[in-house]
C-alpha cells in the first residue's frame, strides 16, 4: 500500500468513525453513565489519535489527544458527562472532520488554530469532579484493553492482558486493525469496499445489456429455431437476475443518512432551547445510492424545520398539556414499488393564519384568493419559493429557500412530497420515491402511430371501452371528459390532444380495407379545392362537364360516409346533417358547371356563391363529426396515478409491458415536463417516456391544491362526491334578457302557467287561485333587483310559475320569465356572500348560472315593505 492509499483508507474509516462518534455522544448525553457507549467513544478517539500520530498529522493528533484525555476521565468516572462537555466533544468531532477535509483536498492539515478548542477541552478535563465515579471502572478498562490489543471482539469477556502501553507504533498498528474489526462487528457478513464510480460503470453496462437482450428477444420471437428460442429464454432470465443483482449492489439502507440525524437534532434543539427525542423506524429500508444522495439534504432540512419551527419550547408544550420533550419520528418502508419516508413531529403543526398572512405579505396570493383558500391550499403554500414564516432567519432554517427546494429535488428524482398538519398536534411530511432510476418496467402505448412508455409505478389499471360503451361512458363536465370508474368520476385526458398532434384520424398505408377512418384534413381540403376548380372553370382556365364532377358517393367523404360513417355514427345529428349538406354541395357543383356549359355565366357565378356558402357549412360539420368520431371510437383508457390523484389517459392502442432503460433527455428537451426521458425499444427505435405528473398538470386533470376538509386528511384522496362535484337535477329558467338561473329540482313541486287574467291582488301581493288555495306569487326578478312591477304586468299572455311547496306550509309560486330546461349535471358551486336570494353560481351547460336560494328569496320577499297605497 502506498502512502497515499494509507491516507485514503485512514480518511474513509475516520469519516465513518466520526459519524459513529456523533451518534454515540448524543446517546451518551442522555445516558451519561453508560459504560458501553463510553468505551466505544474512547476507543474511537484513541484510534484517531493513534493513526494521526503515525501519519504525522500533528494538529489532528493534538486535538484528538486532548479529547482522549477528557474521555479517559469520563470513562474512569472522575468526571460525569454533561451538556457542556458533550458540546465540547462534538466541537472536537467537527474540528477533526475539518482537518480530515483539509487533508482530503490538499493533502495537508492546512493552516488552522485549534488552541481555543484545546484550551476549552483542557479546562473541562481539569475541573473538579462533582459526581460519583461510575461503578466498576476495572471491567471497563479490561474491555478496552481487550479491544486495543486487537483481540476477540466479545465485549463481555475481559481478558488477562498487559495494560496498554504508550508505545505509539504498536498503538498505531492496532489502531489500524481496530476499525476493521469494529466494522466487522456491525455487519454480520464480510464486506468489501467498492468505488462508486465503478458501480456506476457496471450499471451502465447493465443497461446496455438489457437493451441488447430486448432486441435479441424480439428477433428470436419471430424465429422458429427451438434451440435459439430456448437459449434466448435463458439469456432473458439471466439478464434479469444479473440486473437485479447489480441494482442491489447500489442499494444502501436509509439508516446510513439517518444515522447523522441524532446529532443534527441535538444541535438544533440545543440551539433553539428545545427538547426533542428522535425515533427511527425502518432504518434498514434500502434505496439506490443516487436516490440517497438526492434526498439527503431535503431530509436534513425537514428534520431541522420540525425541530426549529414545528416542536414548541418546553414551556409552551407543558402549557398545552404535552410532555416537555417533543418527539420526532422517522419512518421508512417499501410500498407499491416505491419507498415511503414519513417524518412526523408532535409539535404545534402549521399555523394557518400565519401562513396566510405571510403569503399575503409576500404578494404570493391576492387578498381575494387568500380569503377563499381552503386549509389544504394554505398548507401547500409552504412549497412556494421564497416562503418562510420564520420571524428571524436563524442559521438553522428559515432562510425561505428550504421547502421549495425540497419539493423540487424530490420531484426531480421522480418522487412526491406532501405535508399534512393538525394544529396543536403536529405535522407529517410524507415522501414517496421510486426504487430505482435506471431500469424500470413500463407500459408501452401507441398514439398517432408513435410509441410512448408509461412507467408502471404510476399505472393503476387499464380500461377498454368499445363502441357504444365508449360513446356513452365518456361524459362531459363543463366540456371536460370524464368516465365513471366504479362510481367515481375519473377525469380524462386524450394523449393525442395533450401532445398536440394533428388529428387526422390515422389511416395506415397498406391497410387492405377501404380505411375505416376518414382523414378529415383531406376531406376538408377536397371540398375547398372544389371552389378553386369551379373558379378556374368559370374563368375559362379549365374545362369540366357536370358529369366529370362526379357524385357525392365518389369523393373521399362520400366513400367514408356511406359504408362507414352513417352506419357507425348515424345516431349523431351532425352526421345526418353532413350527409344532407354534402349531397346538396355536389348538386350545386354540378349545377354550376351546368350553367357554365349553357353559357349562363351570371347565374353560374351566383351558384358558385352558393357552393362557397355550403362549403363553409360542410367545414363546420366536418369538424363536429370529427370530434364525435374521435370521442366515440373505442377508447383505451390507462388509469394513472399522479401525486395521489387519479386520471385516465386515452390512447389509441395499448401494447406490452416491458423493462426499459431510462435515458435522460438532452438539455433542449428537458424543460418539456410531459416527458421524463427516452428509451430504445427492442426494434432499435427511440420512444419517449411520459412524465405522468407533468402530463397530468398539463392536461389540468390534477390541481395544485385540492379542496379537502380536515376530516379526510388521513384518508386516501378520492375523486368523487366529496369533491364539490354535485350531480344534481336543476331547473333552468331565463332571467332577464340573457341571464339564467337555476333551481334545485328537489325544490320544485310543479311547473304551472297562469293566464294573466287569473292573477289577482290581495293586499299588495299578487296571488292566484291554485288547487283550492290562494297561492302568493313572487316575481323572482323583483325580489332580486329590489324593484316592484305593477301587479299583473307581463308582456306575455301568461305567467310562468315554478311552484315551491315547503313542507307544512302552503305553496308559493315563483314567477320567472321563461322556463328553459331541466338538466342533470355535475357542477361546482362557487358560493358568494352577500347576495340575497342566491346560493352561489356555477357553470351549468357551459354557462354561468346563478343558483336560486328559494327559502331565502321567499323570506326576503316577505320582508319587503308594503307598496304605497296598499292597505296595511
Amino acid at each position, binding site marked *: 500500500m502506498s502512502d497515499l492509499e494509507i491516507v485514503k483508507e485512514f480518511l474513509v474509516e475516520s469519516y465513518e468513525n466520526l459519524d459513529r462518534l456523533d451518534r454515540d455522544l448524543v446517546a451518551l448525553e442522555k445516558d451519561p453513565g453508560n459504560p458501553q457507549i463510553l468505551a466505544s467513544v474512547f476507543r474511537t478517539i484513541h484510534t484517531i489519535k493513534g493513526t494521526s500520530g503515525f501519519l504525522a498529522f500533528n494538529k489532528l493528533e493534538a486535538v484528538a489527544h486532548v479529547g482522549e484525555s477528557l474521555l479517559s476521565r469520563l470513562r474512569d468516572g472522575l468526571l460525569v458527562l454533561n451538556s457542556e462537555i458533550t458540546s465540547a466533544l462534538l466541537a472536537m468531532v467537527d474540528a477533526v472532520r475539518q482537518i480530515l477535509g483539509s487533508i482530503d483536498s490538499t493533502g495537508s492539515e492546512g493552516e488552522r488554530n485549534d488552541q481555543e478548542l484545546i484550551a476549552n477541552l483542557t479546562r473541562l478535563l481539569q475541573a473538579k469532579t462533582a459526581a460519583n465515579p461510575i461503578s466498576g471502572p476495572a471491567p471497563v478498562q479490561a474491555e478496552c484493553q481487550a479491544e486495543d490489543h486487537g483481540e476477540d471482539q466479545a465485549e463481555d469477556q475481559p481478558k488477562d492482558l498487559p495494560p496498554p502501553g504508550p508505545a505509539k507504533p504498536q498503538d498505531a498498528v492496532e489502531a489500524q486493525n481496530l476499525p476493521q474489526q469494529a466494522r466487522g462487528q456491525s455487519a454480520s457478513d464480510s464486506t468489501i469496499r467498492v468505488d462508486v464510480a465503478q458501480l456506476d460503470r457496471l450499471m451502465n453496462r447493465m443497461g446496455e445489456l438489457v437493451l441488447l437482450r430486448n432486441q435479441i428477444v424480439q428477433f428470436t420471437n419471430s424465429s422458429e429455431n427451438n434451440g435459439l428460442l430456448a437459449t434466448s429464454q435463458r439469456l432473458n432470465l439471466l439478464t434479469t437476475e444479473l440486473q437485479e443483482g447489480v441494482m442491489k449492489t447500489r442499494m444502501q439502507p436509509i439508516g446510513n443518512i439517518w444515522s447523522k440525524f441524532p446529532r443534527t437534532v441535538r444541535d438544533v434543539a440545543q440551539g433553539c432551547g428545545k427538547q426533542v427525542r428522535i425515533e427511527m423506524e425502518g432504518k434498514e429500508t434500502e434505496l439506490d445510492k443516487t436516490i440517497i444522495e438526492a434526498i439527503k439534504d431535503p431530509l436534513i432540512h425537514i428534520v431541522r424545520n420540525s425541530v426549529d419551527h414545528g416542536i414548541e419550547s418546553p414551556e409552551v408544550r407543558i402549557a398545552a398539556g404535552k410532555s416537555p420533550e417533543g418527539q420526532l419520528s422517522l419512518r421508512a418502508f417499501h410500498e407499491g414499488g416505491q419507498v415511503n419516508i414519513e417524518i412526523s413531529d408532535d409539535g404545534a403543526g402549521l399555523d394557518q393564519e400565519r401562513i396566510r398572512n405571510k403569503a399575503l405579505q409576500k404578494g404570493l396570493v391576492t387578498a381575494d384568493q387568500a380569503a377563499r383558500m381552503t386549509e389544504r391550499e394554505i398548507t401547500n403554500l409552504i412549497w412556494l419559493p421564497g416562503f418562510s414564516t420564520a420571524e428571524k432567519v436563524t442559521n438553522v432554517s428559515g432562510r425561505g429557500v428550504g421547502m421549495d427546494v425540497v419539493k423540487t429535488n424530490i420531484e426531480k428524482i421522480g418522487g412526491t412530497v406532501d405535508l399534512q398538519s393538525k394544529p396543536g398536534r403536529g405535522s407529517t411530511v410524507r415522501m414517496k420515491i421510486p426504487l430505482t432510476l435506471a431500469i424500470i418496467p413500463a407500459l408501452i402505448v401507441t398514439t398517432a402511430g*408513435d410509441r410512448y412508455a408509461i412507467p408502471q409505478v404510476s399505472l393503476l389499471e387499464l380500461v377498454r371501452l368499445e363502441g357504444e360503451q365508449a360513446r356513452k361512458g365518456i361524459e362531459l363536465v363543463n366540456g371536460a371528459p370524464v368516465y365513471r370508474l366504479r362510481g367515481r368520476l375519473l377525469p380524462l385526458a386524450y394523449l393525442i390532444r395533450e401532445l*398536440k398532434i394533428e388529428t387526422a384520424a390515422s389511416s395506415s398505408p397498406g391497410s387492405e380495407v377501404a380505411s375505416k377512418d376518414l382523414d378529415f384534413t383531406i376531406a376538408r381540403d377536397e371540398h375547398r379545392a372544389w371552389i378553386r376548380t369551379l373558379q378556374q372553370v368559370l374563368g375559362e382556365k379549365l374545362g369540366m362537364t357536370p358529369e366529370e364532377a362526379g357524385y357525392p358517393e365518389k369523393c373521399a367523404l362520400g366513400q367514408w360516409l356511406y359504408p362507414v360513417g352513417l352506419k357507425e355514427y348515424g345516431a349523431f345529428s351532425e352526421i345526418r346533417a353532413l350527409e344532407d349538406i354534402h349531397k346538396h354541395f355536389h348538386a350545386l357543383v354540378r349545377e354550376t358547371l351546368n350553367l357554365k356549359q349553357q353559357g349562363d355565366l351570371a347565374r353560374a357565378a351566383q351558384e358558385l356563391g352558393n357552393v362557397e356558402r355550403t362549403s363553409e357549412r360542410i367545414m363546420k360539420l366536418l369538424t363536429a363529426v370529427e370530434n364525435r368520431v374521435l370521442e366515440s371510437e373505442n377508447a383505451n383508457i390507462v388509469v394513472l396515478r399522479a401525486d395521489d390523484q387519479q386520471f385516465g389517459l386515452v390512447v389509441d392502442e395499448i401494447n406490452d409491458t416491458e423493462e426499459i432503460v431510462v*435515458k435522460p*433527455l*438532452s438539455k433542449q*428537451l428537458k424543460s418539456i415536463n410531459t416527458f421524463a426521458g427516452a428509451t*430504445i425499444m427492442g426494434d432499435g427505435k*427511440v420512444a*419517449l417516456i411520459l412524465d405522468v405528473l407533468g402530463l397530468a398538470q398539463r392536461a389540468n386533470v390534477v390541481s395544485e391544491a385540492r379542496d379537502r376538509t380536515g376530516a379526510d386528511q388521513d384518508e386516501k384522496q378520492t375523486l368523487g362526491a366529496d369533491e364539490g362535484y354535485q350531480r344534481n337535477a336543476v331547473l333552468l329558467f331565463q332571467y332577464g334578457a340573457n341571464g339564467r338561473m337555476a333551481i334545485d329540482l328537489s325544490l320544485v313541486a310543479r311547473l304551472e302557467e297562469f293566464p294573466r287574467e287569473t292573477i289577482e291582488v290581495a293586499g299588495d301581493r299578487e296571488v292566484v287561485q291554485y288547487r283550492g288555495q290562494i297561492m302568493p306569487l313572487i316575481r323572482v326578478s323583483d325580489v332580486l333587483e329590489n324593484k316592484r312591477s305593477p301587479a299583473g304586468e307581463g308582456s306575455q299572455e301568461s305567467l310562468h310559475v315554478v311552484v315551491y311547496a315547503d313542507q307544512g306550509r302552503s305553496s308559493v309560486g315563483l314567477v320567472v320569465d321563461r322556463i328553459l330546461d331541466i338538466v342533470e349535471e355535475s357542477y361546482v358551486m362557487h358560493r358568494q356572500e352577500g347576495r340575497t336570494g342566491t346560493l352561489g353560481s356555477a357553470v351549468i351547460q357551459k354557462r354561468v348560472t346563478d343558483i336560486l336560494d328559494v327559502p331565502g328569496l321567499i323570506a326576503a320577499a316577505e320582508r319587503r315593505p308594503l307598496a304605497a297605497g296598499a292597505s296595511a
Partner: protein
Amino acid sequence: MANIQQFCTFFLKDQFFGVPVQKVQEVIRYQEMTRVPLTPPVIRGLINLRGQIVLAIDLRRRFAMEDRPETQLPMNVVVRTEDGPVSFLVDEIGDVLEVDEESFERPPDTVERQTRELVLGVYKLRERLMLVLDTERAVGGEDGGVRKAS
C-alpha cells in the same frame, strides 16, 4: 506559413457550410427519427446512435429555409457539443477541405440577422464561399430556440 484548418463540409439548399473536423463525431446517412411532440419544428426528433439517444436538428429550419422536398432524405452530421452529441440534418455532404486561416472573414452586416447569429464567419474559397456554422448556437438553448445574443 499559412494556418491550415480542416473542415467537414455540407450543403443546405445552395449554401455551402463547414464545421471544424474536431467538432464532428461522425457523418451518417438518414436515420429513422422519433418525433418529439411539443417541440419547435426545428427539432425533428431523436435518433438511436449505437445505443445513445441523440437529438436531430433540422438545419434548414434553423436557417428559416424552406423544407427540403419530401422525397429527399437528409444526411446526419453528428457534432460534439458541450452537452453531448447532437445531429444536424443537412442536404448533402461535401468533402473534407483544408482552408487557409487567412481567407477567413466575419460575416458582413448585410447578411440577415438570423444567419449571422448562427455563423461564425466565411471562408473565401476559390470557387465559392464556405459559411462556418456556430455549432453551439445552432444547437440551441433549453427551449430548442437559438441561444440569443445579448
